[in-house]
């Protein structure tokens, strides 16, 4: 057997390779990015297709298409990406799949690099599919292999849920033999894939009928030590913290798959009078068990009961406290000594020069509303730049500006990155062009997806200009500027002119990301 040192994300990718995938699709997003970075780097070695897509929805659909053609496919994203892919995701559970389809989704409890800490297990339950939750790199590998088999056996997509600590922990794993890829199979399944109400109702019933089988499958992913008195139910990464701090005497039920294995849970709690529930994310398990257990006179403790904080990731410390163990910290430091060190734009970052020009251009307009978006340029919201005032969801800047302009504001500006624009800003710009909205959109073309480590973008330079033209923006109000300190004055003038124009303008601020330039220089 081959051993390799890999991140949890990379172990998952290797699991997919050894399960015989033919294709992988994704949109980057911390902490899931390294899955597809890895697959793209190795695609020739393993004879697979792997690519970055425009967004998570297109990635999911591409994976479903590959599955419909009989091949095994992996689609990866961060938790909020699943909101974007949700329509395709929910309906793929109804249509079912042909080749194994696995969705790897990485949650970010504590919001290390995210806008929220939503828990993807709710999505798995919502769609009524199967979900696996590995607790280390070896399980990332093995569970992904199994996920593909289960997907084909059950005829539905299977989710592998990661959290940041699992995705970004490096360890040694053992690999097994690689399975051969599936053959191309072009048979169309009209009855299953055409989700007109007549077909969809039948398909939905089939999905409902599978549920008891799904639950049986999740009993294969448990470990149980029965006992009396106080016991622990733990899942995924929480198993690690439980194993780390427990004395070895507490009865436990370790859960690594969903839907919850209810029969096993009932068996486990029989002789217990108090159950502590440990999970990393929202109180998903606790919510599902609380009513049933309390009705039978048992105490249930966890995040809902207030034993463990409701927000933020689970930690060894919160686990210790939950189990009634003392947390001893010999060297604590008073908060007055600690100064935060938030991420900052790199030296020479083109976004900074654009923001300096933008700030000067809107200086006289006291009521200008400048909406931002998600990417490295979100750092422009922080001191000393203070240039943008929103970061909600990808692509939102365009319609936040448009909506504010419809509401009556005179100077509405959206600021969006090249990748974010293609991700989900384009439909919004089409609306703005059609409605001749009075707003200005600044597209920051650094020709890469910088925030997540410099992945390839779909459109840059001239391509972006053509997209804007094609979407209906008037040619004379598509301006290209070069954000350099030496061009500051002329850039301020261009921005001033376009924001005072009573209609739609797009300014493309084009200069390559400094990190990408450095990387290219190193290669030479």
């Amino acid at each position, binding site marked *: 057997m081959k051993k390799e040192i890999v991140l949890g994300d990379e172990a998952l990718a290797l699991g997919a390779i050894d399960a015989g995938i033919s294709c992988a699709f994704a949109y980057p997003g911390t*902490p899931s990015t390294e899955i597809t970075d890895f697959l793209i780097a190795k695609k020739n070695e393993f004879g697979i297709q792997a690519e970055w897509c425009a967004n998570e929805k297109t990635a999911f659909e591409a994976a479903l298409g590959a599955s419909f053609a009989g091949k095994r496919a992996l689609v990866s994203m961060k938790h909020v990406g699943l909101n974007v892919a949700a329509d395709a995701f929910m309906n793929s559970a109804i249509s079912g799949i042909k080749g194994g389809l696995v969705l790897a989704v990485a949650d970010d409890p504590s919001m290390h690099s995210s806008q929220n800490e939503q828990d993807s297990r709710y999505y798995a339950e919502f769609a009524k599919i199967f979900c696996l939750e590995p607790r280390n790199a070896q399980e990332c590998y093995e569970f992904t292999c199994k996920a593909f088999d289960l997907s084909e056996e059950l005829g539905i997509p299977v989710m592998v849920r990661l959290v940041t600590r699992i995705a970004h922990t*490096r360890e*040694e794993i053992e690999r097994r033999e690689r399975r051969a890829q599936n053959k191309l199979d072009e048979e169309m399944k009209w009855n299953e894939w055409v989700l007109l109400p007549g077909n969809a109702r039948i398909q939905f019933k089939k999905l409902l009928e599978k549920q008891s089988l799904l639950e049986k499958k999740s009993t294969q992913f448990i470990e149980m030590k029965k006992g009396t008195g106080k016991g622990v139910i733990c899942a995924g990464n929480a198993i690690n913290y439980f194993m780390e701090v427990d004395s070895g005497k507490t009865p436990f039920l370790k859960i690594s798959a969903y839907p919850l294995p209810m029969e096993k849970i009932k068996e486990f709690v029989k002789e217990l009078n108090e159950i502590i529930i440990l999970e990393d994310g929202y109180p998903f398990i606790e919510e599902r068990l609380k009513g049933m257990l309390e009705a039978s006179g048992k105490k249930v403790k966890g995040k809902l009961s207030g034993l463990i904080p409701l927000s933020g990731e689970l930690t060894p410390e919160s686990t210790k406290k939950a189990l009634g163990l003392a*947390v001893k910290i010999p*060297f604590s*430091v008073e908060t007055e000594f600690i100064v*935060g060190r938030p991420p900052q734009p790199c030296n020479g970052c083109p976004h900074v020069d654009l923001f300096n020009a933008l700030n000067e251009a809107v200086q006289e307009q006291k009521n200008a509303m400048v909406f931002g978006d998600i990417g490295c340029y979100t*750092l422009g919201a922080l001191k000393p730049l203070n240039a943008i005032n929103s970061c909600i969801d990808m692509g939102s800047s365009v319609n936040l500006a448009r909506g504010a302009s419809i509401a009556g504001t005179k100077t509405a500006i959206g600021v969006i990155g090249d990748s974010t624009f293609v991700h989900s800003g384009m439909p919004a710009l089409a609306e703005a062009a059609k409605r001749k909205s009075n707003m200005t959109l600044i597209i920051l073309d650094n020709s890469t997806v910088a925030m997540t480590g410099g992945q390839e973008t779909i459109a840059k330079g001239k391509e972006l200009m053509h997209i804007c033209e094609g979407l209906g923006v008037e040619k004379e109000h598509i301006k290209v500027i070069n954000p350099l300190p030496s061009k500051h004055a002329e850039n301020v003038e261009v921005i001033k002119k376009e924001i005072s124009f009573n209609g739609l303008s797009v300014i493309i601020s084009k200069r390559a990301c400094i990190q990408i330039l450095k990387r290219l220089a190193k290669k030479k």
Partner: protein
Amino acid sequence: MKKNILICGVGGQGVLTIAKIIVMAAQSQGIKFKQNEVHGMSQRGGSVYVHLRLSDSEIFSPIIPKGKADIVLALEPMEALRYAPFLSREGLFVSSSAQLKNIEYDYGKTIEKIRELGGKLLDSKKLAEKAGNALTENVVLLGAISKKLGFKENTLRKALIKAFGSKEKSILSTNLKAFELGKNALL
């Protein structure tokens, strides 16, 4: 053997390289490891760390529990204070004395606090310059904690040679010099 090592600094300072070399050394002695890293936003000049756990037996938690680090190694004084709560009572606490000025803080007060906690401050930047390249500061600091890592004599040196061996000869020799300077600077 069981060792919990927390290495911290600022994105771009070479925190991961230190961890990588320690892991190479651990592997050559058949020791298991788990290494939790920061990827994402903070790599842009923010606070970064590695939780590195070495052990003969299975390791569970991907992160070191607070109060359980045998070593806290900081490449920057403010980062040293930020991660001090991970240190165990008998743990080794080492920090570079060089401030990285992408934020403002009271340097004097910070240094004083590190000393009060029993931390050892090292002018590792100067030693790195002496070795021939300020960028080898991380390797100077690796040298400084090397005796406490519990490896056999020369294991780390061999790992360094493996890590830098494929690069230009001068890069390897500068790093080996940096390592030796660090090794002799403390204790």
